[in-house]
């Protein structure tokens, strides 16, 4: 079965990336053989919608499960529509995480585990706590 993991590097011995939408790399593992391939994430510098685009990309690769640190509500919604199981709170070496998954150590997330954090850049709200990216490219 194919599963995806958000990764900090292109190897199965690299660390899980806590981020989903702006993870550096996605690693897709065939759990039966532990064969894997790495995909550079094209959405790292997206002005907005990074989670949505990354989720959609993975859904198109026919993965059944995504292992990651944090998943926001928009990406979660996309995975849900695609029938991809989301597992959050995963960290450490990717190879270990996959083994843990195969052993049934993880439970499926029923909802996103971080708040909406859409958008990047813009520098809005200089000098005050309300600064918020406006999600425009």
């Amino acid at each position, binding site marked *: 079965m194919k599963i995806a993991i958000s990764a900090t590097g292109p190897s199965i011995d690299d660390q899980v990336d806590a981020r989903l939408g702006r993870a550096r790399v996605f690693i897709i593992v065939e759990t039966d053989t532990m064969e894997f391939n790495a995909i550079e994430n094209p959405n790292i510098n997206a002005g907005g919608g990074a989670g949505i685009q990354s989720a959609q990309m993975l859904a198109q690769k026919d993965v059944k499960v995504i292992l990651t640190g944090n998943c926001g509500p928009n990406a979660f919604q996309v995975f849900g529509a695609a029938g991809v199981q989301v597992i959050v709170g995963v960290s450490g070496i990717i190879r270990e995480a996959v083994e843990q998954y195969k052993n049934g150590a993880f439970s499926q997330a029923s909802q996103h585990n971080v708040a909406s954090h859409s958008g990047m850049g813009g*520098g809005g709200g200089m000098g005050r706590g309300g600064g918020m990216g406006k999600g425009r490219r």
Partner: protein
Amino acid sequence: MNIAIASGKGGTGKTTISTNLAFTLARQGKSVQLLDCDVEEPNCHIFLKPQIQFSGPVNVLLPKVLDERCNGCGVCARVCEYSAIVVVKDKVLVFPELCHGCGGCSLFCPQEAIVEIQRIVGTVETGSSGAVRFIQGLLNIGELMSPAVIHVVKKAAGQSDIIIIDSPPGTSCPVIASVKDADFVLLVTEPTPFGLNDLKLAVEMVRRLMIPFAVAINRFDIGDDEVQRYCKEEDIDVVLQIPDDRRIAEAYSRGELIIDALDEYKGLFEESWDSIVNLGLHNLKSESA
């Protein structure tokens, strides 16, 4: 004359200057409108205590998919620049807070399966305070589309001798929406490293927009003289300098205009306006030369 009061760094004194300038000019007999375009947290009303005469919703358009017509082709998702509409396994998902209401998805849908519905993102209010006509916008909590509300605030302004726009801080989309099309921008700063750093960013923004501008230094006697030095090097006029007077802070904390609480500051605002007008006229002359 349409003048925007902007800044790099927040909390430098834009609202202080906008409100005091508005009343200074209205009391000279000019017709003045004050627009509070800081729609995430408008605060001019604290000093104006306005009579609100009209309040209305600000809407943006949102796509609604007619399921019976949709065949999951995904053209809408390809058109959308903001990932606000995506197609996943033949299901169309819409993310309202990302939608900019451009209408592209609806326009290009080959099945004509997308209609646009209204969605409220904020409110606009108009009214007056004394001789000053007042318009403010308020973006609803949880919404991102400040520019939509700002555009409505600016559209609601009628004709007057002077329109003063109290802008949000910074240099991002809401600021551009507020400042764009102004005849003049007054950049408010303070003489500190952060003040200077953010002033430089704001200067870059106004130069890119090609709008004539000048600088106001608030609390000019604290901090260092780097801001002054920078303005001199860059040939930027400083048209207003307000001292660090504790009584000003006290009046502000009571929601009072400086010019009402402290008579001696009336002249400061009057003179700064004369400087701005002169710069504006000079700019017109050099443009037509």
